[in-house]
């Protein structure tokens, strides 16, 4: 079976989608949650729910969004966030490929930002600073205009600056995205 055949089969069969995309989704969840157990639980739970709901037509970009939103739900919840902070493993911190001024968003900072930003902004934040997408990719991924993405990133930068300024005026902030 060719890769494209596998992708088609996975897109209409949750078991194949789980086998094919599960590891990628766990890696993504790990980059946010910073521990493998919660990441695996989250992805497993996502597929169980997809089956129960009859949502069987899925592809990787769609599942990426679902994982983002489930992770954010966990992070937004104060008790869930406290538990995640206790369990996070520094070794799972992803490399900061965006460079010095646009670094990886940590779990603690993401939690604080979740108190200042709505779901739409948080999703853009994850796309840019966790998934490291370009603005064009984010626009395509979320079905929004590039202009909207730019505006949301500007607000995100303001929020990051406010949080970083409150906690540590010298902390690096996310300043701009291409």
């Amino acid at each position, binding site marked *: 079976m060719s890769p494209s055949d596998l*992708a088609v089969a996975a897109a209409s069969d949750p078991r194949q989608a*789980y086998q094919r995309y599960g590891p990628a989704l766990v890696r993504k969840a790990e980059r946010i949650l910073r521990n493998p157990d919660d990441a*695996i639980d989250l992805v497993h739970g996502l597929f169980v729910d997809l089956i129960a709901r009859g949502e069987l037509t899925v592809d990787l970009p769609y599942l990426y969004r679902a994982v983002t939103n489930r992770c954010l739900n966990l992070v937004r919840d104060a008790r869930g966030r406290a538990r995640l902070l206790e369990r996070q493993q520094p070794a799972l911190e992803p490399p900061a490929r965006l460079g010095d001024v646009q670094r*990886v968003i*940590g779990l603690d900072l993401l939690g604080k930002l979740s108190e200042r930003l709505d779901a739409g902004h948080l999703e853009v934040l994850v796309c840019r600073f966790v998934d490291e997408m370009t603005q064009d990719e984010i626009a395509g991924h979320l079905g929004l205009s590039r202009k909207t993405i730019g505006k949301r990133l500007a607000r995100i930068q303001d929020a990051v600056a406010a949080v970083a300024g409150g906690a540590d005026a010298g902390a690096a902030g996310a300043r701009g995205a291409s």
Partner: protein
Amino acid sequence: MTAAAAPACTGEPISWLALERYALDELDGRAAARVRGHVDGCPACRAALGRITDDRRVLPALPALPAGTVSRPPWWRRWLWTGGVGLAVAAAAVLLVVVVRSPDGPDRPGRIARWKGGELVLTLVRDRGGAIGVVPGDDPAGVADVRPDDRWKVQVTCPPRAGAAWIDVAVYQAGEPTSFPLDAHRVACGNDVVLPGAFRITGGAATVCVAVGDAPVDRGGIVRHPTAGMACVFLRPAPGL
């Protein structure tokens, strides 16, 4: 913010999603070549790709599928195999759509419709006794429930470069004829464009869909080919109903 001690990308990083799709061989030739070319010259992105290809984790098994949800090929593929090519082309021409899925089967339609203007994303806004909710909410895989006294409005997002689009709303319910709760509207594309008017849904579970086209969409086609090429949201009855 924190940063792991690793080299930064030499330019704009290849996103993790693109790297994952590259590793799965799901990118088209041009996109794959772009990734390959970048990774060859960028140690940071090469290391990121290595984290993907070196990952050998095993995930826990999924539970057994409940009865009735065994997957099968999308209906359009079965149709093509049985010789319905001409009819499929005709239906696509009427609705100006690419994506088609069955209405009630396991492969339920999604909330994105594609037409030649681009992609249209459907969102429903529910007013339940003054409490406003957006459907789907945080979870794009989610479904919402419906009560007879809920008031619903339709929001769509489509690329401004598409200019204007004709939108028609259809409601499908088991055992009921297809209903059109709003007049068809020509809207200027943009983010979260709200259609004029609101409606209620009685009779329990429903699939609310929008059809999109450059001209008013033929309602006969919407009735004959439920949900085909449309952006849809499935609503289940609220608990206790």
